Structures are given as structure tokens and as C-alpha cells.
């Protein structure tokens, strides 16, 4: 029995390591482009709302806490507690996705989604974007550097989008787990599923812990 528990935990970690390598590719691309086009990355980063970003970090950390408590409830066979923790985790996960979709909406409105309709206006003429301008007083970027903001937003959408996809998958599994927990599946001593899902959820949290400073906090001083 101990060996089986070892084996599933080990397998889960191997899976998470492949995930880390996958996100590692995105992080490496980000670091290289940030090094090349730093002014564009600063200007792009100023477009992100630090309040939403910080709130989302807090939401995700809290959801990790409730998930950890869920594992504890399963281990100590508290069915009610487990249900409460799973529901709270699911709720916080959905709050995170909701805030993320508000942020995406802002980008779509301003034409900051890479593609044919991408607009350089906020970067070649920062004063045309008074909300951001009054906070950071960015100088206008030359056209060739302003173009590279598209790369920043490309990476922003690739990284946060892939992270959000993991959140959506996590939420779907949580819904399944709520029903299973209601049937009493995890409070009989078989906690492996809850524990391994916890590992997945915390891993998604760790990705965000790195995405937040890299994307939102590049250079916040005006």
C-alpha cells in the first residue's frame, strides 16, 4: 500500500515536471524578448492594471490555502469540511478567471490583442491614453520599438492564456470532485486523488507567482 501511494505521488511529480518544462519554454522566450526590447516591455506592462493583478494573486494564494485545507479534511476524514474546502477552492478559481476575463476585455477594447487590429496608439502617443499617462508619464516610443509591444502582449496572452486553460481544467476537475466528495469517496482513507489534485492546483499557483512579477511588475515607478 505504501508503495502504491509512493508511486502515484511520484508519477504526479513527473507530470508536473513536464508541465514546468513546458512553461519554462514560455518563460525563456519572455526573458529573451524582454532583454532585447526592454522599453517596449515596460510600456506594455504599464497597460496592465496592478490592482486586478494583485487581487488575482491574493485570490489564487487563498485558493491554494483552501485546497491544502481540503487535503487535510480528507486525511482526517471530515466530509463536511472537505466539501466546504472544495467548493471554496472552486469559487476562488472562478473568481480568478472572472477577473482575468475583465482584464482581457480591456485589452480587446484598446486593440492590444496581437493581430491585424493591433493598435500602437498608446505607445507612440501615450497622451492619447490619459488613464495610463497620468500614472506613469511614459515618453512616446519610436515606431520600431513601439511595434515590439505586440511581442509583449503576444507573450502576455500566451502565458496567461495557458495558465487560464490550466485553471479551467482544474475547475472542471473540482466540480467532479465535489460530487465524488458528496458521495463520500475521499473520506474513507483513500485520499490519493485529492492529494494529487492538490499538487496540480498548487503548481498552477506557482506559475502565477512567477507570471505576476514578470508581467505586471516590470517597472512600476513613474
Amino acid at each position, binding site marked *: 500500500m505504501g508503495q502504491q501511494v509512493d508511486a502515484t505521488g*511520484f508519477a504526479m511529480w513527473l507530470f508536473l*515536471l513536464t508541465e514546468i518544462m513546458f512553461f*519554462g519554454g514560455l518563460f*525563456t522566450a519572455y526573458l529573451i524578448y524582454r*532583454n532585447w526590447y526592454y522599453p517596449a516591455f515596460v510600456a506594455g506592462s504599464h497597460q496592465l492594471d496592478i490592482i486586478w493583478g494583485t487581487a488575482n494573486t491574493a485570490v489564487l494564494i487563498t485558493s491554494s490555502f483552501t*485546497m491544502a485545507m481540503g487535503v487535510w479534511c480528507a486525511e482526517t476524514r471530515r466530509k463536511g469540511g472537505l466539501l466546504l474546502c472544495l467548493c471554496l477552492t472552486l469559487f476562488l478559481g472562478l473568481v480568478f478567471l472572472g477577473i482575468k476575463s475583465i482584464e482581457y476585455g480591456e485589452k480587446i477594447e484598446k486593440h492590444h490583442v496581437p493581430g491585424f487590429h493591433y493598435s500602437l496608439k498608446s505607445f507612440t502617443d501615450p497622451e492619447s491614453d490619459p488613464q495610463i499617462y497620468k500614472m506613469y508619464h511614459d515618453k512616446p516610443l519610436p515606431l520600431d520599438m513601439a511595434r515590439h509591444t505586440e511581442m509583449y502582449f503576444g507573450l502576455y496572452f500566451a502565458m496567461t492564456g495557458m495558465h487560464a486553460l490550466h485553471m479551467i481544467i482544474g475547475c472542471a476537475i473540482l466540480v467532479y470532485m465535489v460530487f465524488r466528495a458528496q458521495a463520500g469517496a475521499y473520506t474513507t482513507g483513500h485520499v490519493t486523488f485529492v492529494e494529487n489534485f492538490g499538487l496540480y492546483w498548487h503548481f498552477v499557483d506557482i506559475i502565477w*507567482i512567477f507570471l505576476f512579477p514578470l508581467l505586471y511588475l516590470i517597472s512600476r515607478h513613474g
Partner: protein
Amino acid sequence: MAKDMQMNAHQEHENEQDDDRAALEEHRHVVPPRIYLIVGTTLLIFTALTVWASYLELGVFNPIIALFIACVKATIVVLFFMHVKYSTKLTKLTVGAGLFTFLTLIGMTLADYFTRAWGRW
């Protein structure tokens, strides 16, 4: 006599089950909620800290501090929320080896890109 033997067999079977359960419980170190609460609060404090630090004018140290705080947060999550501190040597070795490979791959790629156009910027 036959009844006694049956009882014994039954008891032995129960003992075996208890052993299984004991082995399971011994294997699974149950982390108390108090630790989760401390860890969660610490993570929130570090989040506030990193936001505050990003508003300071520190030059090259801005990203270094931001990444350092992120690494501390990630380490806390891995050790406590993900139970690595209480895990078997196999898990610890897996996590350590994975992290080492990851850093080697990123380090070598970045070393290549950052030195390719050396002196031509």
C-alpha cells in the same frame, strides 16, 4: 475449538487490516492546519511586499528582488502546501533533479542568446 480457531483467524485478519491502516497513516504525514494558515499568510505578506518593492526605483535590483521574492514564495508552496518537506527521499530527489534540469536548460539557452551579439549592441 473450531469456533476458537475461526475467531483467531478473524482477529488476525483484522490485525492485518489495522497494520495496513497504520502503515498508511505512518506514511502520510498529516500537516496541521496551523502550518497552512501561517504559510498562506506569509504568501500574502510576500505578495504585498513584492508590489511595494516594484514602486521603488532600484535599477537592476528591481527584477532581481521581484524574482527573489517569487522564488521564496514558490519554495514555501512546494515545501508546505505540496508536502515536499514531509515527503519520501524519492519525491525530494525527483523535485530536486527536475529543478536542476530546468535551471540548466534555461541557463544554457539564456547564456547563448545574451552572448550571441556580444559587443554589437
